[in-house]
């Protein structure tokens, strides 16, 4: 009987009754042909491949990560609860050692959702990977986590959530932000004052193919992972680097994705984007699942694939090598960069304008972090949107020092007297999440 080399868990949740709108890429049809392919291959009959039914995440699971404005139910649909729940189900199966690896093949995706959520951006409302990771940290005491985001778009949401967390290494490999949404993810985006170097961005030029992509994994990502020594590797497995994707310009193939997965050996993969629903997704997902399970994927080849016509030019390769070199240099001198960046300031501030393209919302954000050597530093975010909300969110990190913890509580109390209409507190050490509606 056909047997998987590694026990692999899958949650398959295509949300056949949910769409952002009827002609949106994130629509009912998106995983239809993937389901056809996966079913036709009989993958769930393979000994060692187990399909799990997704659970729903709780509001607390979401509040552990996000400041949802004004509340969780206003920014999430049932489908978001299930898709994040699917990731959580897989995370649990891996941590309970029921399976060695897992893949949450769910929609809607999440990697553009930042810590503050006013609505949907880049088809994402809540960050399903972060919700899963923080649940696993709480429940199983997982400490060091690496998230490798291989979606073609910069994982700016995950980057934002882990910007200040030195225990989470976030590496995003994507099409250069000068040529694609969301327009960020350059090599000099390295994380906040307490976590410089645990955010790394690898922007690749358009027309990168298997060769350049796999080079980046082997020569840049793997050595960094080896040094970081994560307890858990999570792959945000977007599939829009594919040569047939309608909204990007890369030339990655199903074989390439499978090879990437074999090299990266993620404990958990979570589906992100990928909108070539007929030409790519059925084959890429097959490739990823077989690679996770340690099975032969050599015959998973798209009918329209022609290796020669998707070969990258020598210029593209040279450019990729150059980017890789910069990323490695930054990684190696991260302590030095941190020192320089911090200066003598006790607090660091960041002011940003954030656009929610999916829901058409504009947000203004002022973020303040305490520079701290004893913990990840207490963080507050002053955020207002053109929908009339003005909130303060305070985040006390999981292993907060006493001082950061008390500053955080003070900030939260002060907010109630300020000009905000909502105040939120994420008290991670006690795993409690507070909200105050401020009447003025």
């Amino acid at each position, binding site marked *: 009987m056909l047997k998987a080399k590694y026990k692999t868990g899958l949650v398959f949740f295509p*949300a056949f009754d949910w769409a952002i709108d009827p002609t949106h890429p994130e629509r009912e049809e998106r995983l239809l042909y993937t389901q*056809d392919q996966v079913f*036709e291959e009989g993958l769930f*009959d393979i000994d060692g491949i187990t*399909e799990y039914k*997704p659970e729903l995440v709780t509001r607390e699971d979401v509040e552990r990560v996000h400041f949802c404005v004004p509340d969780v139910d206003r920014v999430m649909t049932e489908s978001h609860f299930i898709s994040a729940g699917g990731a959580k189900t897989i995370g649990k199966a891996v941590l309970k050692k029921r399976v060695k690896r897992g893949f949450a093949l769910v929609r809607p995706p999440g990697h553009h959702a930042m810590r503050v959520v006013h609505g949907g951006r880049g088809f994402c409302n809540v960050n399903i990977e972060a919700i899963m990771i923080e649940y696993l940290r709480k429940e199983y005491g997982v400490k060091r986590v690496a998230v490798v985001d291989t979606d073609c778009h910069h994982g700016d949401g995950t980057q934002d959530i882990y910007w200040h967390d030195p225990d989470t290494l976030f590496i995003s490999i994507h099409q250069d932000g000068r040529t694609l949404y969301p327009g960020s993810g350059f090599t000099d985006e390295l994380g906040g004052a307490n976590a410089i170097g645990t955010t790394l961005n690898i922007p690749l030029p358009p027309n990168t193919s298997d060769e350049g992509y796999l080079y980046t994994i082997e020569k840049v990502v793997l050595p960094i992972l080896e040094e970081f020594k994560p307890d858990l590797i999570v792959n945000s497995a977007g599939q829009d680097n594919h040569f047939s994707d309608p909204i990007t310009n890369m030339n990655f193939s199903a074989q390439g994705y499978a090879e990437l997965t074999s090299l990266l050996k993620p404990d958990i993969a979570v589906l992100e984007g990928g909108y070539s629903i*007929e030409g790519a997704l*059925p084959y890429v997902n097959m490739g990823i699942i077989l690679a996770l399970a340690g099975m032969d994927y050599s015959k998973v080849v798209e009918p329209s694939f022609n290796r020669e016509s998707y070969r990258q030019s020598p210029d593209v390769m040279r450019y990729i090598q150059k980017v890789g070199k910069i990323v490695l240099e930054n990684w190696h001198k991260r302590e030095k960069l941190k020192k320089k960046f911090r200066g003598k300031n006790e607090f660091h501030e960041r002011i940003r304008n954030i656009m929610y393209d999916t829901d058409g919302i504009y947000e203004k954000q002022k973020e303040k972090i305490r520079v701290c050597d004893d913990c990840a530093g207490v963080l507050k975010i002053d955020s207002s949107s053109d929908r009339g909300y003005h909130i303060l969110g305070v985040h006390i990190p999981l292993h907060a020092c006493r001082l950061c913890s008390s500053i955080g509580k003070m900030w939260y109390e002060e907010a109630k007297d300020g000009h905000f209409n909502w105040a939120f507190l994420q008290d991670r050490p006690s795993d409690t999440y507070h909200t105050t509606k401020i009447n003025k």
Partner: protein
Amino acid sequence: MIIGLDMGGTHTDVVLLDQNGLVRQKKVLTDAKDLFATVLKGLDTIMDGLDADIISRAVLSTTLTTNAIVQNRIKPVGMIVTGGPGLDPELFRTNSYYHIVSGSIDHRGREIQSVNEDEIKQIADSLKREGISHVGIVGKFSTRNPSHELKIAGMLQGMFDKLFMGHHSSGNLNFPRRIATTYLNAAVYPIHKEFFNAVKKSLESKGLKIPIHILKADGGTMSFASSIDFPGQTILSGPAASVMGAALAAPEKGDVLVFDIGGTTTDIGVLIDGVPVLEPLGIEIGPYKTLIRSLKTYSIGVGGDSYVRFSNNVLTIGPERMGPALAYGGPEVTPTDALFVLEKIEGGDRDRAIQGIGAIAKERGVSVEDAAREIIEKTCDLILAEAGKMIVQINSKPVYTVYDVLEGYRLNPDRILVLGGPAAYFSKHLGLVSDFNVTAVPQWGVANAIGAAIARTTSEVTLFADTEQGVITSSEGNFSGTCNKSYSKENAISDACDLLKKKSILAGASADDFEMEVIEELEFNMVRGFYTSGKNIRVKVQVKPGIISGYEKIGKKISPDIQ
């Protein structure tokens, strides 16, 4: 009047029913060496002295094909398989005459690579030279577009006795199971054909004109004639007979578990509002996972003859069966012996049972009666624990819509119906040790044969329409056609129901028993570049397992001989 015949490993039960209840019941010994003779003897015995004209139908549930597969007494068949991107079809090799050929179809039913006629001709010639007379033809995604299977079959027509095409067996997507199903259909065909001819000849020689139906694993029947094309569907009909027997006694509303306690195993089935729960894809038998529709049944290795031993302070029951109970001259202690000790059964050597259980009692430091009670209790606990696992498994079946995740049906049974040899004794104990309302099925000893007799003809049709390409395909409906852009889900349901009706009549259904039901209806807008280019429609309709018209109330009329 109707006849039901259910063949078991040791004996074969036959019943004669009319709309007022059980008229006759007989048991004949199963002759493992001659199952044909067993069936004929069963029919003769039950009809002894009766006029054949009063018999409106007879339903047979046999172990013929099941045994042939389990004992690997199947004839070599040829297999021709087309693949495509994905897993290597070599992984699903069924036997040595298994040929992978060019040709491939994608998930939307579009041809990626055509069939190579020369290659097929060569393989056909070589199969012919090897003396192969039955061939299975299976393509990946043939349920989306059967043209490659049809083309290959067309080329082989006339060269072989019988061809089986994958897309006929099921509309479900699962290439490896389609291969296994088609292989089994081809492999058991000769033995089923032989059986068909023997029964037909025997009835004809006696001048009897009884419409014969065959029980399928899904708890429904098909006509003897149509079984020739789908002999694989007769595999594992035994558990289905039991569940249908219990269905007669089930309440109209509510979730019910069915326990068929046999010698070696207990089969567990589920009824929801009196209707048996089906397996999502199909039966598994030996190494084969198939698309053969079947009732959801779990078999656990605990029964009346399970091997009971006590060692290292642990009482273990099953899963082995070493032979019959001590009281019946067997080698080891069994739960049946415990029933002898407690004087719940008679007619065997009680002293041997006491002796065997006495040894366990001595080690345990308890009385023989207490040891016997402990054995019964433990047996019941084991069965209940497995039933609990089955409920969890059914409830954790993945679903694919937000609606189903939030509102999906959750199985929560509060009743158990028990049948099989020691049913009456066990039902009482099961009731004592659990919160379930437990009863024995009336006429529990022959309920399986009754279940076969009253089962209606079941059928399933899947229809797939792609309005962008303008094609409609129904594989089990044996239909391919075209459609225009305005073709809708409602059109698809109506077409599928027409096909289902046609298929059901061919399979021997009577007009009173067309209770059609839509079990899947999905419609997707296909959007290409920001415009809707067509619709992708998937519809599945069925005649679900149930009781033939006129016999629905018979359950209440059958006298409960033991309650």
